[in-house]
């Protein structure tokens, strides 16, 4: 029996149209727009100004706090302005505009493709390099990686869990990276193990990727303490708490961190970025993005420089189809609908999904029939319909008592509801309200 998390979950059609496609290199655009807020936490502060000449890999934004990340130029050229630009969040936020000239890299970056397995740095040195390189969680959550590697005092990581579930339908960027950069990822994992001083790492891969399971089972043989765990395909297995439950059968309590059960979770793409940062001195300036959709002529996995307009990615995958209903940054379950195709790809862009009107249209909503299907699928063991009502009636006490802040916004409830109720829309609203109330109470 394959393991999976023990509460709720759904299995939407996988629709991995770009599975098995090789990663192709996307041309460098004429201009990049690099947002200074690509991560959770404080935005980076620009350290360049209009007219500055930058190289590929030059630091252009310095982390703006403990929970923040450095930003580097993904191209060489001239800074034309630092101004607000529309990004994937739908807001206009500060970004660095760079006109591309050539592709000249910082000399410190090792562009040689040879594999370096050995790493003789201390944990502190590793974490410093990761911090320098501006690495964030590549699965889409974009939490600054170094913060997760520095557990609060008194906590000790027993194991590292590598998130290779890629449970979102359509997305294949992690899968393609695993097939092509397996050895680098493994080397990255061993660096991460060293950084948190643990002897054990488990790579959780859903069994809808048998080639990746086979490949990695083979690769880990040379490394002590590293194992591959095939997992039953189930959404949202890539959720941090769900993955920990699936792998070590322990549930992180409400409001607690994964380290409370001895686990540190890192995405497989993050492990690759860590390898490049530590062994090659390469900051996070490019990533693999899945560009997909049933009406796209050529769904692809593209290696993209950060700051490239989404439009260029879509063009490389066959161009924006007519009757496009939504352009989604991320997958269909947790991704964000983009306002325009001109927003730039960022560190958290795991995929671009094009859906037609028909695929994404919301049907009319009916009264709740209390079928409890939302309760059955909620991976956090919540009662979504109760939380929706509590939000509707502005009964914040009831919402808090029923753990609204534990909602991971996976959308399984809304996906499942036979009455087409927009449960998550309400719950998200209520969660924000209740979190505000809790913060106010604490201060």
């Amino acid at each position: 029996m394959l393991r999976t998390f023990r509460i709720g979950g759904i299995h939407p059609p996988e629709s991995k149209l770009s599975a098995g496609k090789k990663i192709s290199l996307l041309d460098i655009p004429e201009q990049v727009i690099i947002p200074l807020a690509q991560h959770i936490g404080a935005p980076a502060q620009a350290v360049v100004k209009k007219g500055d000449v930058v190289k590929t890999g030059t630091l252009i934004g310095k982390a703006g706090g403990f929970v923040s990340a450095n930003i580097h130029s993904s191209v060489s050229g001239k800074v034309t302005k630092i101004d607000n630009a529309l990004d994937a969040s739908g807001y206009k936020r500060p970004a660095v505009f760079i006109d591309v000239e050539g592709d000249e890299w910082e000399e410190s970056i090792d562009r040689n493709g040879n594999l370096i397995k050995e790493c003789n740095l201390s944990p502190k040195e590793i974490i410093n390099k990761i911090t320098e390189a501006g690495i964030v969680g590549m699965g889409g959550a974009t939490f600054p990686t170094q913060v997760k590697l520095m557990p609060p005092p008194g906590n000790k990581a027993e194991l590292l869990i590598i998130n290779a579930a890629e449970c979102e339908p359509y997305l294949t960027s992690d899968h393609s990276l695993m097939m092509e950069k397996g050895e680098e990822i493994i080397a990255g994992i061993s660096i991460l193990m060293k950084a948190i001083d643990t002897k054990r790492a488990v790579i959780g891969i859903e069994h809808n990727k048998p080639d990746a399971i086979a490949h990695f089972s083979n690769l880990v043989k040379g490394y002590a303490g590293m194992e591959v765990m095939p997992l039953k395909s189930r959404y949202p297995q890539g959720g941090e708490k769900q993955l920990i439950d699936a792998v070590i059968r322990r549930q992180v309590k409400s409001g607690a961190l994964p380290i409370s059960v001895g686990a540190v979770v890192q995405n497989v793409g993050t492990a690759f970025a860590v390898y490049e940062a530590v062994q090659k001195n390469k900051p996070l300036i490019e990533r693999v993005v899945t560009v997909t959709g049933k009406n796209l002529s050529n769904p692809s996995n593209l290696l993209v420089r950060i700051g490239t307009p989404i439009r260029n990615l879509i063009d490389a995958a066959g161009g924006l189809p007519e009757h496009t209903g939504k352009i989604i940054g991320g997958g269909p379950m947790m991704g964000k609908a983009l306002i325009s195709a001109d927003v730039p790809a960022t560190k958290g862009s795991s995929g671009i999904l094009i859906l037609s009107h028909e695929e994404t249209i919301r049907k009319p909503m009916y009264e709740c029939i209390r079928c409890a299907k939302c309760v059955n699928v909620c991976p956090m063991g919540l009662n979504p319909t109760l939380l929706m009502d509590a939000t509707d009636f502005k009964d914040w006490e009831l919402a808090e008592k029923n753990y609204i802040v534990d909602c991971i916004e996976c959308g399984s409830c809304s996906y499942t509801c036979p009455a087409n109720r927009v449960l998550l829309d309400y719950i998200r609203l209520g969660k924000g309200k209740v979190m505000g109330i809790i913060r106010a109470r604490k201060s």
Partner: protein
Amino acid sequence: MENKLIISPSPHIHGGDSIQKNMYGVLIALIPAMLVSFYYFGLGALIVSAVSITSCVMIEYLIGKFLLKKEATISDGSAILTGILLAFNLPSNLPVWIIIIGAFAAIGIGKMAFGGLGKNIFNPALAGRVFLLISFPAQMTTWPVPEPMSMHYTDGQTGATVLSLLNEGISELPSYTDMLSGNMGGSLGEVSAIALLLGLVYLLVRKIITWHIPVAIIGTVAIFTGIMYGVDPYSYANPLVHLLSGGLLLGAVFMATDYTTSPMSKTGMLVYGVGIGLLTTVIRLFGSYPEGVSFAILIMNAFTPLINNYIKPKHFGGK
């Protein structure tokens, strides 16, 4: 074209489930029992079903249109379902006018008075049935004797049910084969255990319901009646007779599992099911009514909000 991009929060896809799919799924699960009732009770079953369905749908339509002045809700299939379930709980010789009163009690009082689908506290079909049972006790407890492809309606020969025989202390019961296939007196949809179990399998496979409520009810009745039978086999019937007779299977599979009136958490469903099982057995063995499933379900319906309030789903990372 791009100015027409849809912007709405995630999730961006839907699983395609709908109220209709669930309601019509239950209707499909009811087909075996319906065919059996047509076979054993013939014309009577046909007339009772047709009148019950038509009046339930009509009453919902009229109330929706003229009293609530809301959009028509009859297309969701729930009124048809209530109609069939009400018919299944009636004897096949019940006069048309009584059925219409029952439909009014079911839909008008049991469902629409509370605000329609999703708002009602009591199972509408059972509310209708119990209303009739109390109002017309004689007509509601004369049971036509099964007669394959019978052309009788209100003029057929009548007899007793297994439970009324037991209640009067008579031990000459139909054979197990007859009880399984449905060759015995009773409400028209309750007689065939095999047909009802087929329906249960379908509901479980389609994931329209989970196993918790039916298993809790059937298990509780089996254990409770088993203990009593073990204590005194001369006064009490064996558990198998209890499981196969009366409305137990119909109630456990189709009535108690009604979405709106049953609890939402798995543990809550088990508590609710055990409650129904206990009450049913108490009424059957110690009460003056021979059958207690309807009362048991309605009583536990009333406890459902309380169960929901106290028994929450198992919270991730919770105790």
